[in-house]
């Protein structure tokens, strides 16, 4: 059985394969089509004109366009990866396709999307977007030069609008010329042609994003085949041959099914052999719709009225139409339609010279109304690239205005050159020019002779046909944006509310905010606004800003392969496998996986951390500290350089010793901190926070390169070269003594903040330092990364009879907070100076360093700044959430509540047998002993302000206890 609206092959063969029949399901009904069909053309062939109801008003809607400008026919595809909101005009028919109509809102599947998406990065000399006549011509002339050419087109076949018409080039059908061009391009090695590929973004310096559909049209897809590919293309020259979009006209009841764009009707007729209606009224403001009328008449449809706004259309066109049996109504307009689920007739009346309605309206019966309100050049990519537009009165469209070497070249219909000969000439010239500019000299080839071209006399533009009755504020069936159900009344309401800018009106009315981004509504909206504001032309209203993407892009495509475990690189230490085997819970610090705690069976985090803390305070514990950043700073000026970047002095630090240092920004705020060792007179090893390593290196380099380039200093990141184990607790000396038999570990022989090079009992060379981030006696064993696991295991073995306990970052945080040691980025936030932290002792008075001058600035020198203090909740078990704010105890909790500061760190302490916190509090040091309130979770918790050291304030535990 043939589809009711499919034309016989003898009348119109179309570009479809009638030897194959494809079965598809739409809204539960099984229908048929052929390869070469889109879902839209197959639906029209099957007589399905009405395809949905509108999103807000519930009005019946039909297919309007034949390309991606389609505002109504949005469908949901079913299948393994259901896909919402696709225009039926962009869905290529395949066997077994299951689609469902949508009323403006789609749905996503509940299973993970298994489709593969990938990316490619390429460079090209000349990128040409659009393979209509001008784009193809440009590709030919640029390709022949030897330049690397990249031609992309979003349709399945090259040729653009030439596939819809009967033009002839070089004495043969245009399709023959296209076929020759395709063959020639395929043979040039440096030319790459992508079909089904949409240039969605055009960015600075000729950078384009192209979304290529690779498998959507195939019946079967291989398991690893990427469904879509995102091409990142860097071009040396960009040529935009993006064509033009036909506009509808806004009149009363202009949304009924069967009202279509005139060029779309012609496309369905010639490309898909589909006749969408038998009795067609054609309504136009220019010449192009005459071709539609002639093609309709040629296949046996009737054209009872060709309504042309122009009082004197070109005589030869009128003659052709009337000779074929149509009737032309010059100087007239369609004012409204009748029908319900299908247009049944059009009301027509005359237009006077001023464009006002005149004469006596009459009705013409029809089941198809083909409308052409003019052509809008597709200038989206040009606009994205920063090009400006101007209103061209003759062409009645916004065309590219500015040109410059930094902007893409626009050719053909995209610059309102609609005639074929002109488009070919521009394409050949632009291709040659772009190739020549890239160093591939070539002259533009001869322009082939053409015939059957679309005529192109001056249009009489019209965006809005006035209603017969009522003022414009009430024209609520004059649809401006079909997809958003927005009308002239909505635009007038926006203007009445004081909006003037098109950006505001569009946001207020939601015009152009649909899936189609206003491709058919944008310019008409501007025309309606111009009318309402009574300005001369749409040019005075201007356009909205063109932003990428030109067409919707799947998030999955933007992500490409960078999903799941490939989303971000994962950094692990050389002891990672041990931590995993020990059941550690990990936390992410930057890209690092750090053990957070090591729960034993039945333990939650609290219990594990309490146990780990007790081990470190009473016995011995070990932590993997390999993730700390390490930067080697080398050169004869290294001492001077460190003195300039750190708050404390490093030049006088003896070789073999280490010192804690803070770094500040030029504004005096804490940037990072860590211990630096002096390895030799001209060599330091600086450690940084785990998260701050890369930033600190960049910071150091910046000063060396830009401000102090006279200094002889080199910085090298060596984070990945080292592995390190902290051995912490009163029994740590015994463990290290066993581990490093050659080392004198006594406090007399190995002082605090010293380091030694030695060999472990198993022969591993190690650098052992006595530094402590817990206040306990502690050693840090640094070895080459590849010895990391062996060293960790050796430490565990050496400490086994002391019950050595591995601990994670959470325990480390509790231990350091008990001692009041800050973590940069947790207890500081870029507004905190070392003095605010009470670290005056670490701020050298004898030398200058980055940020020092800022301490004397008026605001920084205030004595009532937010300062680091301790907090003890009066209820010993109450744990304050980090980030909670502090207020005076008697303040009413009605906004605005004056805030005094906030909690930066808060833990449960095994050593104190209670909770405690660190906080930044305004004038905090003077408030020690005060009680403040922390309101959270609906109640207020009283806390006492204390000094920020809770444990071993005198530092008695640092050197541990010597065993006799």
């Amino acid at each position, binding site marked *: 059985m043939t589809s009711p609206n499919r034309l016989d092959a003898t009348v119109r063969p179309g570009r479809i394969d009638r030897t194959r029949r494809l079965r598809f399901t739409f809204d539960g009904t099984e229908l048929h089509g052929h390869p070469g069909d889109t879902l839209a053309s197959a639906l029209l062939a099957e007589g399905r004109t009405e395809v949905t109801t509108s999103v807000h008003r519930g009005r019946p809607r039909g297919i309007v366009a034949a390309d991606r400008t389609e505002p109504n026919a949005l469908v949901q595809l079913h299948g393994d990866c259901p896909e919402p909101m696709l225009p039926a005009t962009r869905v290529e028919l395949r066997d077994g396709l299951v689609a469902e109509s949508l009323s403006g809102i789609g749905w996503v599947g509940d299973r993970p999307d298994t489709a593969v998406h990938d990316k490619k990065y390429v460079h090209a000399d000349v990128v040409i977007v659009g393979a209509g006549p001008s784009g193809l011509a440009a590709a030919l002339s640029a390709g022949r030069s030897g330049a690397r050419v990249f031609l992309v087109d979003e349709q399945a076949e090259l040729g653009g609008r030439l596939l819809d018409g009967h033009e002839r080039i070089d004495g043969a059908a245009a399709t023959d010329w296209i076929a020759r061009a395709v063959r020639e391009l395929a043979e040039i090695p440096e030319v790459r042609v992508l079909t089904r590929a949409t240039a969605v973004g055009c*960015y*600075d*310096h*000729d*950078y384009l994003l192209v979304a290529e559909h690779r498998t959507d049209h195939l019946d079967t897809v291989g398991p690893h085949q990427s469904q879509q590919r995102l091409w*990142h293309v*860097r071009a040396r020259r960009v040529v935009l041959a993006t064509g033009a979009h036909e506009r509808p006209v806004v009149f009363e009841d202009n949304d009924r099914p069967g009202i279509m764009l005139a060029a779309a009707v012609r496309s369905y007729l010639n490309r898909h052999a589909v006749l969408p209606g038998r009795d067609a009224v054609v309504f136009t403001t220019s010449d192009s719709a005459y071709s539609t009328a002639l093609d309709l008449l040629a296949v046996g449809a009737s054209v009872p009225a060709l309504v042309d706004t122009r009082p004197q259309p070109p005589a030869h066109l009128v003659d052709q139409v009337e000779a074929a049996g149509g009737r032309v109504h010059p100087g007239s307009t369609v004012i409204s339609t009748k029908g319900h689920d299908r247009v049944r007739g059009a009301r027509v009346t005359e237009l006077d010279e001023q464009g006002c309605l005149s004469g006596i309206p009459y009705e013409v019966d029809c089941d198809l109304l083909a409308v052409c309100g003019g052509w809008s050049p597709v200038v989206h990519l040009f606009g994205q690239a*920063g090009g400006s537009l101007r209103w061209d009165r003759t062409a009645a469209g916004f065309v590219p205005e500015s040109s*410059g*070497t*930094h902007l893409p070249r626009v050719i053909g219909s995209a610059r309102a050159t609609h005639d074929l000969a002109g488009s070919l000439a521009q394409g050949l010239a632009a291709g040659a020019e772009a190739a020549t500019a890239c160093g591939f000299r070539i002259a533009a080839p001869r322009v082939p002779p053409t015939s059957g071209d679309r005529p192109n006399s001056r249009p009489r533009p019209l965006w809005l046909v006035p209603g017969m009755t009522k003022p414009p504020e009430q024209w609520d069936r004059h649809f401006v944006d079909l997809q958003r159900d927005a009308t002239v009344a909505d635009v007038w309401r926006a203007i009445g509310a004081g909006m003037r800018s098109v950006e505001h009106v569009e946001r207020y009315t939601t015009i152009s905010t649909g899936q189609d981004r206003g491709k058919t509504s944008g310019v008409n909206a501007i025309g309606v606004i111009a009318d309402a504001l009574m300005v001369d032309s749409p040019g005075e209203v201007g356009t909205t800003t063109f932003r990428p993407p030109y067409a919707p892009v799947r998030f999955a495509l933007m992500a490409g392969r960078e999903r799941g475990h490939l989303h971000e690189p994962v950094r692990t230490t050389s002891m990672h496998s041990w931590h995993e085997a020990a059941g550690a819970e990990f936390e992410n610090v930057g890209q690092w996986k750090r053990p957070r705690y090591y729960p034993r069976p039945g333990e939650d985090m609290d219990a594990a951390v309490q146990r780990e803390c007790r081990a470190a305070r009473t016995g011995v514990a070990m932590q993997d500290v390999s993730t700390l950043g390490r930067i080697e700073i080398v050169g004869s000026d290294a001492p001077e350089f460190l003195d300039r970047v750190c708050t404390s002095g490093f030049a006088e630090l003896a070789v073999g010793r280490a010192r804690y240092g803070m770094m500040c920004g*030029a*504004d005096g705020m804490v940037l990072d901190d860590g211990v630096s060792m002096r390895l030799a007179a001209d060599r330091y090893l600086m450690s940084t926070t785990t998260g701050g390593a890369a930033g600190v290196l*960049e910071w150091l*380099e*910046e000063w060396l*390169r*830009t*401000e102090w*380039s*006279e200094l002889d200093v080199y910085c090298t990141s060596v984070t990945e070269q080292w592995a390190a184990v902290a051995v912490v607790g009163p029994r740590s000396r015994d463990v290290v003594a066993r581990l490093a038999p050659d080392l004198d570990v006594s406090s007399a022989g190995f002082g605090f903040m010293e380091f030694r090079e030695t060999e472990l009992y198993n022969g591993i060379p190690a650098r052992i330092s006595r530094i402590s981030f817990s206040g306990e006696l502690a050693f840090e064993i640094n070895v080459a990364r590849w010895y990391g696991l062996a060293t960790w295991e050796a430490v565990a073995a050496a400490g086994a009879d002391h019950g050595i306990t591995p601990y994670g970052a959470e325990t480390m945080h509790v231990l350091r907070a008990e001692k009041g040691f800050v973590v940069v980025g947790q207890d500081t936030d870029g507004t905190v100076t070392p003095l605010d932290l009470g670290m005056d002792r670490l701020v050298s008075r004898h030398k*200058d360093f980055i940020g*020092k*001058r*800022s301490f*004397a*600035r*008026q605001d920084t020198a205030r004595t009532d700044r937010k300062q680091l203090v301790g907090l003890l909740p009066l209820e010993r078990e109450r744990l304050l959430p980090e980030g909670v704010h502090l207020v005076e105890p008697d303040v009413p909790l009605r906004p605005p509540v004056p805030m005094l500061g906030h909690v930066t760190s808060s833990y449960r302490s095994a050593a104190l047998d209670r909770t405690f916190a660190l906080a930044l509090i305004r004038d905090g040091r003077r408030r020690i002993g005060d009680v403040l309130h922390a309101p959270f979770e609906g109640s207020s918790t009283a806390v006492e302000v204390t000094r920020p050291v809770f444990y071993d304030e005198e530092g008695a535990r640092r050197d541990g206890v010597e065993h006799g």
Partner: protein
Amino acid sequence: MLLIHCPWCGARDEAEFRYGGQAHVDRPPDPNAVDDREWGEYLFVRDNPRGRFSERWVHSAGCRRWFDVVRDTATNEMSAEVPSRSGRR
């Protein structure tokens, strides 16, 4: 995606670089010799022209060196500036 010409590595994508703000903002040689207002300007105040603007970039995912360029802030056209003080090594 800007195409930035690193004086040492050639033209590379913007993603390889980090922006360093306005060029030629010299740190006062003796910070203690300037008053709070001048120091504040050094810290916080930068030009914001429409048009040509000298600025610093660092090729952080490449050679890690700093250099200056002139960029037109309206069109993003970039031209090389002598690597000035960052050119010693």
